């Protein structure tokens, strides 16, 4: 049972799927950035992103435009991420991974509570940086907001990619994640690299939060469902691979959208479980995820 198919509608579905996927991808990327160096899943990633988005909301209430608030929020998020690592993660850095995971869970609860205290909870509307109108491209109605979200993610990836590939700091971050002991032997201060990684992750998550908030309402629990999708995306891509996280996020967004629209008996109620089932099947064949690979080694 396949619903009526038109190419214009298919194009619209692709764009909305990619836009949703971009949000999952940004959060998945944040998870991977931390996982690579800390070997733990940061359960507070969603709450950190929501917190950043609330800061953006406050700034916009004080006369900032969205695009003026955007860089300020990124800077604050970065500093916040570094602070979290130094103050909360550092003391348990050498503890078993499970301890770190529990600490991030505690951090999630703490941030969630703080948001209720500071912004008194409640869902509120959030005006993003893009018009909610649509434009007509070859007969298809394409949302400017969706295109904007995809564009922002693409720009973010480009900047991060250049940073990791061509700067000394980016290389040092990668080296610290791959081999902390050797990194220290070449003079890298690995402890600070960890903190820097948390800062970057907080920043990337904040971008996701500010992109998704206009699509729904802004509330302390805004990212909780999205964090689950981001976990799925990160596992799909391979927890070790930033590229994998992004591809995983986009694929998940597309799959959920297309399944919901085109496979009749799945529809909007079953699209999520169906997508997760697909991931499960894929992981049976590639346990490391799509991009989780082991480097070839010779002695």
């Amino acid at each position, binding site marked *: 049972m396949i619903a009526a198919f038109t190419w214009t509608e298919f194009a619209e579905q692709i764009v909305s799927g990619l836009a949703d996927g971009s949000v999952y991808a940004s959060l998945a990327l944040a998870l991977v950035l931390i996982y690579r160096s800390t070997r733990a899943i940061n359960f507070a990633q969603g709450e950190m992103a929501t917190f950043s988005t609330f800061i953006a909301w406050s700034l916009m209430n004080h006369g900032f435009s969205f695009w003026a608030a955007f860089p300020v929020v990124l800077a604050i998020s970065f500093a916040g991420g570094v602070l979290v690592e130094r103050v909360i993660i550092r003391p348990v850095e050498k503890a078993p991974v499970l301890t770190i995971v529990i600490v991030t869970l505690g951090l999630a609860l703490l941030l969630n509570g703080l948001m209720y205290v500071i912004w008194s909870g409640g869902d509120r509307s959030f005006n993003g940086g893009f018009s909610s109108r649509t434009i007509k491209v070859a007969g298809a109605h394409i949302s400017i907001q969706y295109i904007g979200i995809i564009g922002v993610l693409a720009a973010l990836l480009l900047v991060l990619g250049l940073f990791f590939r061509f700067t000394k700091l980016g290389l*040092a971050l990668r080296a610290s994640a*791959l081999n902390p*002991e*050797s990194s*220290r*032997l*070449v*003079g890298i201060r690995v402890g600070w690299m960890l903190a820097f990684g948390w800062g970057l992750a907080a920043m990337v998550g904040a971008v996701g939060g500010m992109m998704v908030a206009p699509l729904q309402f802004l509330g302390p629990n805004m990212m909780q469902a999205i964090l689950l999708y981001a976990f799925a995306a990160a596992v799909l891509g391979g927890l070790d691979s930033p590229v994998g996280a992004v591809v995983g996020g986009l694929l998940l967004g597309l799959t959920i959208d297309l399944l919901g629209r085109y496979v009749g008996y799945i529809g909007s109620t079953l699209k999520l479980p169906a997508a997760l089932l697909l991931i499960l099947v894929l992981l049976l064949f590639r346990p490391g995820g799509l991009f989780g690979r082991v*480097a070839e080694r*010779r002695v």
Partner: protein
Amino acid sequence: MSLLELRDVEARYGPVKALQGVSLDVGEKDFVAVLGANGAGKTTTLRAVSGTVRRSGEVRFAGKKVRTPEGAARAGIAHVPEGRGTFAELSVWENLRLGAYTRRANLNEDAARVFGFFPRLQERRDQQAGTLSGGEQQMLALGRALMARPRLLLLDEPSLGLAPLVVKEIFETLVKLNEDEGTAVLVVEQNANIALASASRAYVLEVGRVVVEGASDELRANESVRRSYLGY
């Protein structure tokens, strides 16, 4: 005053004492070898210098206490550890870039010098380090250390698992480096023959203690050293 001074250095892994009071000196422009059987504490001695093992006693480099591995690197010590410490997932070029991490110098100039020593690395510049042959990986480890323009090189068994010709090439490079540029070398070796042929002085370790020390020629003439380590 020597460049590197170890005084009564002790180190342990959990309950096992690996070093029980080692004292050792490496002078400016010196080439020193550390010999000994497996488990004698050779690797731990190097790790004590760079601070990659918990230790007590005194480790001074150029008169200053060495505390952390990153501190040692910044002070001018380049440690090529057991297992070489290269980044298998990164390219040869990225490994070399990391070697120069503590310096603000001209990367290309330093790289040209390393490629002068090891032309093979230039050919493999963009290859993943983990895919190099064992000899090439040892060259990369040494090349990466040279990128830091160290005052002291610490080498842990550079001959391990390599063909005799490659071993010869690597030790020739070390001697050249030591003679032409005055880089001090502290090398730990199982292969006592080649180590004594290259170094001017040597220490012999047994269960975490220095049992013999002296000029390489004296050690080669020493009856027990000859029988235990040189095999003739």
